[in-house]
């Protein structure tokens, strides 16, 4: 089952490598990974999407927690949460802009540029939403894709902060 883990990591040299290395060392897969500094910049927030049984994920979280540079870790999929991913997609030139806008509207899609050869769009949604959209875009030639990987946040009062 897919799990979205969120963690706060000290902004220190090699901290990210420790997290990534740990997944490999212990035989877990990273489906997607997103990282950027937050708040005062002294620490970063990581979102890792992975797959595993409940006990495997519990073990991953415990091992992550053991890393000295990890401040906190949470399994967002345990409860209500928001999960969102940003994708930039380059496709071949779009002729029918109106219907394209309609297709991407549910994903807050924007057409960033549409010139004589290519069209670049941006969409946000769950990973499944984006997968579905990409399937729908098959008739347009998809040239290049970049995805941020899942970003996650607890819903309501639950927080992952310092």
């Amino acid at each position, binding site marked *: 089952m897919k799990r979205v883990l969120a963690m706060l990591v000290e902004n220190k*040299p*090699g901290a990210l*490598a420790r997290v990534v*290395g740990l997944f490999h060392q212990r035989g877990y897969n990273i489906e997607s990974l997103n990282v950027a500094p937050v708040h005062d910049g002294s620490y970063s927030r990581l979102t890792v999407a992975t797959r595993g049984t409940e006990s495997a994920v519990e*073990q991953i979280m*415990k091992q992550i*927690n*053991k890393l*000295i*540079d990890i401040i906190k870790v949470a399994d967002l999929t345990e409860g209500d949460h928001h999960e969102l991913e940003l994708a930039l997609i380059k496709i071949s030139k779009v002729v029918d802009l109106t219907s394209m806008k309609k297709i991407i509207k549910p994903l807050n899609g924007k057409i960033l540029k549409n010139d004589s050869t290519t069209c670049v769009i941006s969409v946000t949604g769950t990973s499944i939403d984006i997968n579905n959209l990409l399937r729908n875009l098959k008739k347009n030639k998809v040239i290049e894709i970049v995805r941020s990987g899942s970003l996650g946040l607890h819903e309501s009062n639950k927080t992952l902060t310092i």
Partner: protein
Amino acid sequence: MKLSGGDMLMRALREEGVKFIFGYPGGAALHIYDAIFRQKKIEHILVRHEQGATHAADGYARATGKPGVVFVTSGPGATNAITGLATAFMDSIPLIVVSGQVASHLIGTDSFQETDMIGVSRPIVKHSYIVQRTEDIPSIINEAFHIATTGRPGPVVIDIPKDITAPENKFEYKKPSKVNLRSYQPKVHPHPGQIKKAAKAILSSERPVIYAGGGAIMGNASTQLKALNKILNVPVTNTLMGLGVYPATDKHFMGMLGMHGTYQANMAMHNADLILAIGARFDDRITNTPSKFAPDARIIHIDVDPASISKIINADIPIVGQVKESLNALIKEIKRSKIKIDSEAISKWNDQIKEWRRLHGLDHEMYLKKSKSKLIMPQEVVQQVYKITKGDAYVTSDVGQHQMFAAQYYHFDKPRRWINSGGLGTMGFGLPSAMGVKLAFPNKEVVCITGEGSIQMCIQELSTCLQYGLPVKIININNQALGMVRQWQDMNYSGRHAASTYEESLPDFVKLTEAYGHKAFKVTQRNKLGPTLEKAFALKDKLVFVDVYVDQSEHVYPMLVSPNGSMKDMWLSRGKKT
């Protein structure tokens, strides 16, 4: 006063109470070595190979409980320390490894003797630092010692580029304040609710077993463990890493458990209705097939590392905390509890264990008396060493059959006396770790029980022993083969001994030891074993190497049947299964 990075490093180590550094100099570490020269408080021990330095520091740490300190240079110096780091990491031993690095401006340019030490060592350290500013040295050292010694201990690497320790760059030495890391707050005290549950479960059990491991030794909880069983009077077993934490000569001690554990210890685990695991991690050399492990037992698991709990075997009552604090709380709760343990049931259980011990317990002495063989049995060597040293020596070992025989037949009554590489199983560990122990306790008997395979992996340290006057006793159980490999080949590969013998190439260990400036004896006959060992141990101020030729065909038993066996499935002797 302003200090250079090298002098700061030495001062910071002194403030941590460091007495010895085990190391080997080289280009990138030369500023640091010059700083060693400028001070008198800390003694540097020059080993002959960096692996020896890490094992020596490790042995020192295991015997004293204080972190061992290692200095190596960049590149090959650093990579040679890797095996020792992995060894310490697997057994949760506090080590501080300071590695020289090429100068900051050369990092990433494939410069001479450059290796990414932080990257190479990442999976086998508790934490690591690359020093980027000279002024940070005092606080990094302070933090490194804190991390290495608290929570679940482990090795810490500090990589220092050469320019950081340059003598001309001097800075004010700021004494670091108490370490307080927002990302690292190891738990000390157990949850009182869990302690209550545990006490209730123990007091209502009828077939309990205490299973204590290396964590109980690292957590200095031997006294508490003995106190707990003064009240409970239940059977106790120790892991390979835990030997000595509960006195082996106590009537409740069943011996080691697991792969080569005693019949009674493995049977007790399998048939228990409650297992109290203390600082032990249910590794694969203990549990055999996890799904068949102790089918009737409720599991209480005390460990300072939450990741060790329910990793292999699900714990019914997990307790996260330091072993000492947890046992103190448990003892208090048991004393306070209105429930009283069913002493009739416990006494019946203890009788059952006595019966198992009578049936198939380790009793090699009986066998030896009956044996007419002229060949020396390896077990007998350990038994003789035990007798001569009155069971009170520090014993280090290497890895293989001799290690198992030492664990089975040297009955440790005190913690920190049995020094071996349990988790990683590192051949070459025995001699250098014995050096570390001897430096810490120069007036104590230190014995390295080894084999002709293992000893050759770090034999160069005989030279270090001469330089620093370290009269350890090396007992080489020489079966002229890689015994444990050979045993597996006998049992699982129809006796095809692929690459486990040396033909005629073994060195003359007597000549070899003498060439290194020490004393040596060779024994091949049974009737000479006792007298020769007596003679060796009588030479108090000499390193003595006793090369004992033993029966090559001997196997280590009992041995768990694997794969797919449970703990009650054992080979008891050649061709005889439970």
